[in-house]
């Protein structure tokens, strides 16, 4: 791979794994726990957020040279809100049932810290194409996070995957999984799992630096 392709790939993968919004940066928690009751919902939310991310970062990047720093947050917010509105209407046009299932969380994409964070940290300082590639990586990372919760919660809580029953009629669903506490528990479990993986890797290579940075704590 020549250097520029490698750099592009690097930018892309950064959002998917090393700086995964859900498991590393602990951002965008509200939709992650709220809509991951089923895989279809999780996937739709992930794709919607990714689209808004890419479009917003693209436009922010295109306007980065004419945006005075005092008004930049206002500009970012307006741009993000615009694309969220577009996605909102698009989903209504595609499927009202999906729109009802996702509810207010479509419009709440606008306050998803991931998007504003990316715009401020990356899109405002880079040309459009790299900004959009990085945004795509972040979006996919977020979708992976959502899916990992959605799959677990749907299988355990409803016995189905994509609405297709897996265990037959006699399966007693673990209902708590599709209720609010279940969301917290499943995400906590995933974080524990990744933490354990991290420890194992560190133990096996005590001298080397781990590939995945330690969990960035947001705690004050």
């Amino acid at each position: 791979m020549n250097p520029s392709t490698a750099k592009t790939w690097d930018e892309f993968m950064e959002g998917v794994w090393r700086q995964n919004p859900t498991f590393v940066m602990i951002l965008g928690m509200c939709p992650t726990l709220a809509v991951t009751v089923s895989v279809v919902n999780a996937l739709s939310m992930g794709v919607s957020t990714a689209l808004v991310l890419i479009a917003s970062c693209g436009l922010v990047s295109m306007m980065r040279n004419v945006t005075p720093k005092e008004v930049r947050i206002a500009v970012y917010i307006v741009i993000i809100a615009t694309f969220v509105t577009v996605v909102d209407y698009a989903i209504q046009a595609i499927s009202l049932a999906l729109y009802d299932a996702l509810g207010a969380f479509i419009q709440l994409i606008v306050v998803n810290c991931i998007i504003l964070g990316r715009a401020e940290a990356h899109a405002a300082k880079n040309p459009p194409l790299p900004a959009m590639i990085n945004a795509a990586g972040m979006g996919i990372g977020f979708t992976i996070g959502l899916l990992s919760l959605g799959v677990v919660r749907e299988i355990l809580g409803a016995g189905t995957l994509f609405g297709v029953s897996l265990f037959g009629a006699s399966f007693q669903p673990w209902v708590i999984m599709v209720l609010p506490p279940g969301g917290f528990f499943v995400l906590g479990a995933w974080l524990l799992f990744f933490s354990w993986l991290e420890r194992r890797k560190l133990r096996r290579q005590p001298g080397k630096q781990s590939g995945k940075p330690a969990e960035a704590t947001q705690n004050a």
Partner: protein
Amino acid sequence: MHESAFQIFVNALLANNFVLAMFLGLCPFLGVSGKLDTAFPMGVATTFVMLVASLCAYGLNLLLSAFHLEFLRLISYIVIIASSVQLVEMVLKKYSPALFRALGIYLPLITTNCAVLGVALFQTAREYDFVQSVTFSIGGGAGFTLALVLMASVRERLQLSNVPDLAQGTALSLMLAGILSLSFMGFAGLGG
């Protein structure tokens, strides 16, 4: 809808707690709930912004509906919220600099708090009238503060306990939040 103000308040506070049941306001909930003395002021500041946002959203919605400009709803809500937070920041800076410093970066982050925009969006979707909207926002803010304070108290205590290294940090907070959420499910039906 014919919910009474009392029902709405109790529901937003307990049975449908904004954080533990509706998943709004999670980022600050997991971020600021480390210490009790920052958790409570943060809750109060957020409640105030929620109230202001609710009032503005109600007025904005009337205005936009009158001109059939419903598609501008989201943008106008979020711009109003961002402005309200700026206002609160300036007021705090002037009248209570200590509090302003204590809240630090988390004050401007109230803009991206799902709970604030959530109040505006939910009250619009449920077509609440003025009194219902105000009680909804106050109840929601109180619920947010309650969850925050509960979480902070437990976490402060846990700092002195023997928690396995593996679970330190956000994983622990999430498990705690799950247990809190589970216990709040016991309030179901309280609001009638």
